[in-house]
């Protein structure tokens, strides 16, 4: 039985803050829920499902958040798989609503990564935990940037991908950010600027890396039937997929990432093909993340990602527009940014993006990546449509 079109995103809200030393994490989350409910034309009394996860929350933080807003939901999901969590939550909420477990589910994220000076990319990865794999990695100095850098290095070696091609992704995201009044960095940059920025972990420069900001956002998910009677045009959930990739007992092909599997599932379940996609939100933790994800989702062949992202193709007015909000490379990256992928995709499908609106946007894809491509990571893909 297909879930396609049975549920919808009825409300979205992106918190405008990029730096909020005056607000708590739960305040940002609460304000985001309020914003998304206002957008949908619903109230807190309608909410009977909650999904959240976060870098500033404990494993049971979802209970504390329900306490903060005095919510007593019938469905909760705190799946914590890194930045892709909220893309996965959207699918879980849709399944729960379709199965009758709840009627109106909020997906919410908030973080004060910037004001609390959390070193998202260079604070180590897998060095803090007690998981078996950490014991074999932590001693050698893995960071999030370093783990992605090893993917970039291998991609360049195998396919001749150039630093200039990686830089083009950052340049396009900054161009989009210049059209988003809320984006943290809005001054245009050039390929030369990216290449002249300092190396964080070779071959990745500072401007190949996502920014660090505060921020938050929320989504309201409900049945398609109920969404049709609400304030905004429904954005239907057509298909979704999720999975993880890791070292595969030492035998992994590191250029095959989670997106290969989650994307295939999402396309099959949505019943659409690559050429139906008018717009995509592709998690841009690093410039290489975008190239590897586009290849693994099947928008181009493996090794062709560098050429695919070149020549302005990713621009809002190009043949394959992505990340019109400015992405994690320029707009916001409060530790995990999966929720913003769904928010911007929904706004594009509702035609609310003003100067950065993609023409004739009917079907959009959002792909979240969580964790670190070169160590272990998750991928979650969501396909949305406005008809």
């Amino acid at each position, binding site marked *: 039985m297909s879930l396609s079109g049975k549920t919808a995103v009825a409300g979205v809200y992106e918190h405008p803050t990029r730096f909020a030393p005056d607000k708590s994490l739960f305040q940002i989350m609460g304000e985001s829920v309020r914003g998304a409910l206002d957008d949908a034309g619903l109230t807190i009394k309608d909410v009977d499902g909650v999904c959240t996860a976060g870098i500033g929350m404990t494993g049971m933080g979802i209970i504390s958040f329900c306490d903060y807003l005095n919510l007593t939901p019938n469905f909760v999901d705190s799946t914590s798989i890194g930045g892709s969590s909220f893309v996965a939550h959207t699918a879980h909420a849709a399944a729960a609503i379709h199965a009758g477990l709840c009627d109106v589910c909020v997906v919410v994220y908030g973080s004060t990564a910037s004001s609390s000076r959390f070193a998202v990319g260079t604070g180590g990865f897998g060095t803090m935990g007690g998981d*078996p794999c*950490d014991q074999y990695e932590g*001693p050698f*100095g893995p960071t999030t940037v370093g783990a992605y850098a090893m993917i970039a*290095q291998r991609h360049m070696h195998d396919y001749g991908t150039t630093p200039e091609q990686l830089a083009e992704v950052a340049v396009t995201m900054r161009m989009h950010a210049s059209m988003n009044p809320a984006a943290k960095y809005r001054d245009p940059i050039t390929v030369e600027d990216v290449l002249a920025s*300092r190396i964080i972990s070779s071959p990745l420069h500072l401007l190949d890396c996502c920014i660090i900001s505060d921020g938050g956002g929320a989504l309201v998910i409900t049945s398609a039937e109920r969404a049709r009677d609400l304030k905004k045009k429904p954005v239907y959930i057509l298909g979704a997929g999720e999975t993880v990739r890791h*070292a595969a007992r030492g*035998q992994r092909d590191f250029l095959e990432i989670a997106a290969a599997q989650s994307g295939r599932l999402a396309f099959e379940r949505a019943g659409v093909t690559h050429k139906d996609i008018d717009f995509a939100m592709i998690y841009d933790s690093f410039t290489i993340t975008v190239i590897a994800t586009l290849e693994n989702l099947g928008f181009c062949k493996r090794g062709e990602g560098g050429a695919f992202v070149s020549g302005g193709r990713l621009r809002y007015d190009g043949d394959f527009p992505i990340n019109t909000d400015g992405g994690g490379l320029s707009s916001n990256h409060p530790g995990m940014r999966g929720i913003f992928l769904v928010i911007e995709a929904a706004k594009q499908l509702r035609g609310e993006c003003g100067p950065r609106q993609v023409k004739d946007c009917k079907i959009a894809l959002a792909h979240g990546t969580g964790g670190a491509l070169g160590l272990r990571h998750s991928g979650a893909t969501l396909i949305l449509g406005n008809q």
Partner: protein
Amino acid sequence: MAENKPAKYSKPLPHLDEENRPWWEALQRHELYIQKCRDCGDVRYYPRAMCTNCLSPRTEWVKCSGRGKVYTFTATYQNNVPGFRESLPYIMAYVELDEGVKMLTNLVDCQPDQVRIDMPVEVVYEDVTPEVTLAKFRPAR
């Protein structure tokens, strides 16, 4: 004459437990092992109590030659973790051992601009504490 005492090792250390201790004890003896399933023959790294192919608990330890080649690498210039913060830049790499598994490690005795993918490397053992020895790699001689 003052004793030339090495500075205390401040990088993250592994937690040894009953499952991983044989591997770390072998490194203390300057021996590197991977595991092979006695039932289906699948090889694996890192060590664990069961085969990921057939879940068999019957494990053979295979002694490695200590030789391999660089699968991929990065030179890290920023890491805020104590210990690494003081030793930048350092080279992290996946080395593909001749026995067929990739392991995360550091490359030593070379500069970032000397490293190439597929470059042959050989193991060196770094005794960092009385309990812990790390397997790192240098360009093969």
